[in-house]
């Protein structure tokens, strides 16, 4: 296209970072040196260049990791290389929370002040950091670093948490959980002195998976029990047997078994997985490319189960995806990992390399002729990208804004092709179904809630962590699995399903954590969040944090959500400050009406659920009277 660029030029470092993703430019027309004898007579671009658009997000990551922020010059060069209008590259770069479009020191400490961390002293931690390092956003460590507050980092079982990113030629990412002001400032200092060892974060199973090693575990049975980087150990413990059996069975049988298993998606929407696969499978005669996407953009505050599975059993994710690909006729898959999960991304990338070398991915999987490749794509700090159509746009190099449905992903998904999107937890159930049979799997659990479920238990509980159980136990039983109430020992509220879920009161603890059980009390299981708040917590501050989260994470595309999330936060602020417009009842009514508008008219689930938790609290407690 005809690009109209400003005069801002990329620095050597920015150019190197972009060229490392795209390769060297081919001519003076796409950013290389102008050679007029060649460039004055012909130019090539068009489709060949447009087809690289999906590399925009990796390019932005590369710049951010190299320099610590993304300049106009870098965006100009990215635009030129990809033949994408600068307004669009800017639009994409400014969409993501992890990218900075203004100069920022290379080291950033992202300090979580979200719900679970609030129960574990995040506020005090931030106050201490302010004293130690100065206010959020201000340069510290000799101008080499700054710190900022962050939404949930998905480390709730080890709260309070921080993520430190150090840009440079040899970039570093470091997770600190539990974090202290001292550990954050010393890590920042080490990074500033280029003294941060490569040693990556490791999964401490003793803390994160309190059940580890227990015989009844299925989804978590390998986590912490085998070397997650070893495919041999994975195979020794039954890995890839399910894929072998699936190939023997053929795609139709695999889909039938998955339908029979009654497995539904574990990401929150609970759509029958087998039906999704079948819809894509049935389009094979049309000759279109099919895709399988593993949705690992686990961003729901309080959710961390997928991270633990990816960190502890990455090959299981690959195996589940490969079976899905076989069933639906896809040759290409993507794992979209949330940007705040460095270890998970590293473990998966490593597993893919090994699997490819062992012919468990590639052109001839297990000698069967099956072809499938997987690529890891990292998000960059956008909750909305967990919405599947927003995720497509994000991978394709557009702003991660949800699309209207229909058409549904099974008809028109990634690159407008038929696409299956499954959550990590959903996919690791697949080998269980194949090996045990769909009917047997369906008998696990209760009623229409079949199979195993992972719960992310955090907050004021004795042993926070991810817990696996067949569907059936009540909320009380799950809390008991985690050692019972923590904190003051006096439970005030439980958040079920995350920020998009709902609060329940101590009186509702005997609710079975099944689809039917939660529906009966007007709650939802969502992504399996069980977050406890004791009576020391000011629920008003919790609600404000939730409102701020949605206001910050709305993509801004549709009015009800863009405006509604802001007005909701304002109304809550007024209630908390006792500066209501009219009576408390009138403000509550305003909140109810806005919630209705958001539910009715938002394009996607974000706006539709943005008021759920807040209203559930207002309905249960009189917080403002």
């Amino acid at each position, binding site marked *: *296209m*005809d*690009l109209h660029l400003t005069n801002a030029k990329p620095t050597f470092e920015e150019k190197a970072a972009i060229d490392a993703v795209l390769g060297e430019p081919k001519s*003076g*027309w796409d950013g290389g040196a*102008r050679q*007029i004898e060649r460039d*004055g*007579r*012909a*130019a*090539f*671009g*068009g*489709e*060949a260049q447009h087809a690289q658009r999906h590399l925009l997000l990796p390019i932005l990551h590369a710049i951010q990791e190299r320099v610590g922020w993304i300049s106009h010059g870098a965006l100009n060069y990215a635009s030129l290389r990809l033949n994408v209008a600068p307004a669009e590259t800017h639009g994409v770069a400014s969409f993501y929370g992890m990218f900075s479009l203004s100069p920022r020191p290379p080291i950033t400490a992202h300090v979580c002040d979200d719900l679970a961390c609030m129960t574990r002293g995040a506020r005090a931690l931030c106050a201490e950091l302010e004293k130690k390092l100065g206010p959020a956003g201000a340069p510290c460590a000799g101008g080499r670093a700054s710190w900022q507050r962050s939404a949930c980092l998905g480390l709730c079982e080890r709260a309070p948490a921080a993520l430190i990113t150090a840009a440079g030629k040899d970039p570093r990412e470091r997770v600190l959980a539990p974090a202290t002001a001292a550990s954050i400032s010393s890590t920042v200092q080490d990074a500033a002195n280029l003294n941060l060892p490569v040693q990556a974060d490791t999964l401490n199973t003793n803390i994160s998976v309190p059940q580890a090693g227990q015989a009844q575990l299925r989804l978590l049975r390998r986590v912490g029990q085998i070397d997650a980087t070893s495919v041999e150990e994975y195979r020794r413990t039954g890995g890839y047997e399910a894929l072998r059996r699936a190939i023997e069975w053929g795609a139709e049988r695999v889909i039938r078994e998955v339908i029979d298993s009654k497995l539904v998606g574990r990401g929150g929407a609970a759509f029958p997985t087998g039906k999704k696969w079948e819809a894509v499978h049935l389009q094979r005669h049309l000759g279109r490319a099919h895709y399988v996407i593993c949705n690992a953009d686990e961003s729901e505050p309080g959710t961390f189960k997928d991270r633990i599975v990816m960190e502890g059993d990455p090959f299981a994710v690959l195996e589940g995806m490969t079976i899905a690909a076989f069933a639906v006729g896809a040759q290409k898959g993507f794992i979209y990992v949330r940007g705040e999960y460095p270890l998970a991304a590293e473990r998966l990338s490593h597993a893919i390399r090994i699997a490819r070398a062992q012919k468990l991915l590639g052109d001839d999987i297990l000698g069967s002729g099956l072809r499938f490749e997987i690529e890891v794509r990292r998000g960059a700090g956008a909750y909305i990208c967990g919405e599947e159509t927003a995720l497509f746009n994000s991978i394709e190099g557009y702003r991660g804004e949800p699309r209207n449905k229909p058409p549904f992903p099974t008809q028109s998904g990634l690159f407008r092709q038929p696409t299956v999107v499954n959550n990590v937890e959903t996919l690791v159930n697949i080998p269980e179904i194949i090996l045990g049979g769909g009917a047997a799997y369906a008998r696990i659990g209760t009623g229409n809630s079949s199979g195993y479920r992972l719960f992310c238990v955090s907050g004021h509980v004795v042993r926070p962590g991810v817990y696996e159980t067949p569907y059936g136990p009540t909320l009380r039983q799950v809390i008991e699995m985690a050692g019972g109430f923590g904190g003051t020992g006096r439970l005030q509220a439980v958040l079920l399903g995350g920020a998009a879920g709902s609060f329940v009161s101590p009186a509702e603890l005997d609710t079975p954590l099944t689809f039917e059980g939660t529906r009966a009390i007007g709650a939802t299981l969502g992504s399996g969040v069980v977050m406890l708040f004791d009576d020391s917590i000011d629920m008003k501050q919790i609600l404000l944090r939730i409102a701020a989260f949605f206001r910050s994470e709305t993509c801004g595309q549709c009015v009800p959500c863009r405006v509604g999330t802001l007005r909701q936060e304002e109304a809550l602020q007024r209630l908390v400050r006792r500066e209501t417009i009219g009576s408390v009842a009138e403000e509550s009514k305003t909140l109810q009406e806005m919630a209705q508008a958001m539910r009715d008219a938002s394009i996607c689930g974000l706006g539709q659920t943005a008021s759920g938790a807040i209203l559930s609290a207002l309905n249960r407690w009189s917080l403002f009277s």
Partner: protein
Amino acid sequence: MILLWGSNARDTHPIFFHHVLKGVRNGAKLHVVDPRRTSSAQWADVWLGLDVGSDISLANAMGREIIAAGLANKKFIQHATSGFDAYRACVEKYTLERAQHETGVPAEVIQRTAHAYAKAKSAQICWTLGITEHHNAVDNVVALINLGLLTGHVGRYGSGINPLRGQNNVQGGGDMGALPDRLTGFQHVENAELRAKFERAWGAKIEPKRGWNLSAMFEAMERGELTTLYVLGENPVDSEADRHRAVKLLGGLKFMVVQDLFYTKTAEMADVILPGSAGWCETEGTVTSSERRVQRVRAAVPLPDGVLDDMEIIFQLARRFGHDWGKPNAEKIWNELRQLSPMHAGMSYQRLEELGGIQWPCYDEAHPGEMYLHSRLWQEPLIGPRAPFHAVEFEPPVDQLTEQYPIRLTTGRHLDSYNTGAQSERFPSPLRRAATIDLSPEDGERYKIGEGEKVRVSSRRGSVIAPVRFDPGLRPGLAFLSVHFHEQVATNDLTIDAVDPKSGTSEFKATAIRIEKYLDN
């Protein structure tokens, strides 16, 4: 596949180009042939940066390559064309190497485009003035038509050879008979039978021979044969290739009437000015777009004081010449035209309104019109005459490059301005920039001229002063001037009035110039 040849449609036909982009986004390949890497070329899969005026060499080499690679559509050639053997013999000389030498485009790039065009399921060649503003304009067009015939990319859905029209009703102007040799509906004035039909309807005699085209009219002025001129909506003072000559000849007329919306440079010279109406918003009637679609136009606003509908002006003139045509009525005139022009016969106002326009030909009121023009070539058996190949040879531009005039100047338009600016210069545009002579950055270095510095641009006919702007879309030895700003830079003081004898168009696109630093005192 879309082969855009000698057209910067992105800037000059933005609405059309919007449709091109829809195609591109649906997977159509776009190849652009243009001396400059224009904003259109920047959208292309392949840009071929040929030398100005070497189009025939390029087209013939593509033809030869298509034949040699066995990609010619033999069935179609046999079924619907004539003259193929002579064409083949002619293009045989145009090897890729020769074309590379004559056009400057690398042989493999020519080959790639030839193959892409021939192999495409459907392909269009679209061109504009880069093809037609040359001394051999018709030959250029014919060379492109030959490619369409060679591959069968004509008369089928998605295929065709399309000249892009500059205004909403350029097509309509020709259709209505505003051509020296044609009556309404392209009926030849030298055909006695056709002429008789019009004479019967109009009750008047029609000269049995063709008139002058614009170039011939100026020649007639030069000979003193043409002394009176009635100019409707044209601005020849600013648009003629050799401006000095145009001004001199128009100034020598005994009597000139100018009918225009605006007080143009030409109007300034007129004896009588008739303020005209704005066709698109102040009058009733029809327009015909590039795709031959006749559409209704309705008056949206009343005429300003002192202005008459163009139809009314002509009716009043007729009355003063002694012919009372009554009160003008657009629909009545249209219905008269439908009686005389078979290709418009089925287009009642009612149908035009109901169908949102109809593409000619439309022979009767049951006829839906034709989406594409030459479908007959695919009928079994063939309907009508065969489509002829015409062998044409490459001839370089008339204004040759020499040591004294080493730079090739070509001309064109900007997105925000239209031709002489009669319509567009009255409106501000954030995109508009002052007139400049555009040079490659390399030439700037060679002549030691910085951006914004003024230079004297001289051709064999005249010279102008203009500030320099660097355009990386140009290469050394290639310069560009827009045609819009005659007050600032009178481009047509430089251009040559070498005329294509077949079409009467001038070679605006190829002028030999030199550039010198201009020191402003």
